[in-house]
């Protein structure tokens, strides 16, 4: 039955099997036991809507997750790609508006402003996430987990993976990569046209300007709390001034910006620019190993640390198969699935589990041996900054559009 010969994996499967049986007290939206939920989920189809632009993550879901769900839980997982997660949220908003009680999305991969907007509009079913059997491996006390871009999760979404913002460069063409705004400006002046960043509201563009916002204003704290228009209007112009000063030295003289992180990656792999960015700290390593990025590619962090966040899965208010969605979410959080996720460096790249909570024999599955293009997990963990609350991010994006892009 079990085709793989690896002992640790067999152990993981055992663990999983036992999970299914024991966590009967789990609370969930309707107060049913986990056995009932799992039984109701058997033989059903789960529609998983997720951003479709990450090929390796797609492959992980299609080739690794889906067959195991079919074999172990009798669930048919249908992955539906969306070009932007906000399209799925928009779809749900439309359905809510039109009073459509039975939708088509069972499970959605998301975080940040999409979760926030959906929460405002009551789009999420729950709470359910803390009741999953595998939730016990998650540190729900950690603000990196229980706050999604500063907004309380409250059990309406289940963590899937951890990500951290990193800078990627070609060490053959860049000797000493800039780590602060001043250094970046200086570098761009000396190397016109060799740097750029994706245009917000692209996910990576948002991250880049927030990262610089922290650095230019030299503070992080104030942006974790409630949005304060006064503080924003005092601080933000400093960022826009900096970005406008940077603009003429960017790729194409700042006349246009790459539309997405993927577009920037393409410029980088075609040697049109010397830097790209990622939210997956091991992305560069993988691209080098595949021969897509040059061998001399390296990853580094801006000084003072970089943004880090968790991505989650949520169940919409009108999901036709809420039981199946929970079983899938639970499977995604299983040590087996999380170890594979981290091995493949997909989703956000890092596991969301608190490895300390796992049985000892499983922990080594989660050890990372970074290649030359990547950083060690210790270095990453020592340099993490929280994301700002979503309202700050939205204000920054609006401001960027009017103060930088259109000027």
């Amino acid at each position, binding site marked *: 039955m079990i085709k793989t010969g690896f002992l640790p994996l067999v152990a993981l499967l055992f663990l999983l099997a036992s999970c299914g049986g024991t966590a009967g007290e789990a609370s969930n939206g309707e107060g049913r036991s986990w056995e009932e939920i799992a039984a109701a989920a058997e033989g059903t189809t789960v529609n998983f809507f997720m951003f479709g632009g990450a090929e390796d993550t797609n492959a992980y879901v299609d*080739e690794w997750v889906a067959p195991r769900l079919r074999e172990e839980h009798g669930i048919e997982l249908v992955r*539906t790609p969306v*070009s932007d997660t906000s399209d799925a949220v928009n*779809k749900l908003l*439309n359905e809510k508006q*039109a009073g*459509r009680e039975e939708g*088509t999305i069972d499970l959605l991969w998301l975080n940040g402003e999409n979760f926030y907007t959906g929460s405002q509009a009551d789009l999420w079913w729950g709470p359910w996430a803390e009741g999953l059997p595998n939730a016990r491996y998650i540190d729900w006390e950690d603000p990196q987990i229980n706050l999604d871009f500063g907004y309380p999760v409250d059990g309406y979404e289940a963590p899937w993976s951890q990500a951290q913002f990193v800078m990627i460069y070609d060490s053959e063409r860049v000797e000493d990569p800039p780590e602060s705004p001043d250094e970046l400006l200086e570098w761009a002046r000396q190397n016109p046209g060799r740097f750029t960043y994706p245009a917000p509201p692209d996910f990576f563009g948002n991250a880049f300007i927030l990262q610089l916002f922290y650095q230019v204003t030299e503070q992080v704290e104030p942006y974790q709390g409630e949005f304060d228009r006064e503080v924003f209007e005092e601080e933000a112009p400093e960022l826009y001034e900096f970005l406008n000063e940077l603009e003429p030295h960017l790729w194409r003289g700042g006349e246009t910006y790459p539309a997405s992180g993927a*577009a920037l990656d393409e410029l980088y792999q075609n040697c049109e620019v010397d830097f790209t960015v990622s939210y997956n700290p091991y992305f560069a390593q993988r691209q080098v190993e595949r021969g897509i990025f040059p061998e001399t590619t390296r990853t580094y962090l801006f000084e003072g640390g970089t943004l880090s966040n968790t991505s989650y899965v949520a169940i919409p208010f009108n999901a036709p198969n809420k039981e199946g969605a929970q079983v899938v979410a639970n499977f995604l959080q299983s040590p087996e699935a999380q170890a594979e996720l981290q091995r493949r460096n997909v989703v956000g790249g890092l596991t969301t589990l608190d490895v300390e909570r796992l049985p000892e024999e499983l922990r080594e599955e989660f050890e990372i041996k970074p290649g030359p293009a990547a950083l060690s997990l210790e270095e990453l963990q020592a340099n993490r900054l929280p994301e700002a609350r979503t309202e700050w991010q939205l204000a920054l994006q609006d401001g960027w559009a009017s103060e930088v892009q259109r000027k």
Partner: protein
Amino acid sequence: MDKRNRSAGIALALAAVLVTTPLLPLALWSFAGEWRFPDLLPASWSLRGWEALLAPGSRFTEAVLNSLVIAAAVTAAAVVIGLPAGMALGTHDFRLKGVVIFIILLPILVPPLASTMGIHLTFIRLGLADTMFGVFLVHLVPTVPYTAIILTSVFAERTGELEEAARTLGAGPWQAFWHVTLPQVAPGVAVAGLFAFLISWSQYILTVLIGGGTVITLPMLLFSAASGTDPVITSTLAVVFALPAVVALLLALRYLNPGNERGFLGVGKVS
């Protein structure tokens, strides 16, 4: 005359180069292995793109099937709906004919995107969004006007004498239509149908809006590939997506009457 022939030949060669230029890299990339700047030809060849389309989870087969089913249904419906309209407009004169033509012409020039965004909420309320049937319905908007207009000109070129003769010989109106009219307009119907098929096949944004990501068609795969970074996958999908156009061309070459230089697809626009 010689000089004229030569200049026509040069123009023809030039036009051929221009027409094939954007299609050439698509064909090359779809079989390329490694192809870095500034190499003019791929350094190695591979079937990676084609294998990727057939890999598990790629949804390529599902997308092609959906595209074919929708386009076939749209073709049938647009012909059945457009044929009587073309008959009425092509063979009769009546008050308000100008208004009717204007109404039928509108969806050809006014982007159906505008009306589809408007109707989206209603489709959600009626449960038509996210279904193949809903997508089929919105595909009728850009196709029915074409079949109606093409068939109008087909009917307008006929005199109707044969039907009269048939009726005089005792044929009922249905018999006359079935045995005389239809065979005569059959080539025109085929052109209209081919047109409807190509328009539906090429449709992207209407499918995205109404299909809501649940109804996956070929252009959606192509669009998301084109927004990504892999020219091999993008080109392979593009080649498949262009196939019906090539088939249409071959059909035209095979069946086109040499005198008819207007080309049987010359009158319409395919998006």
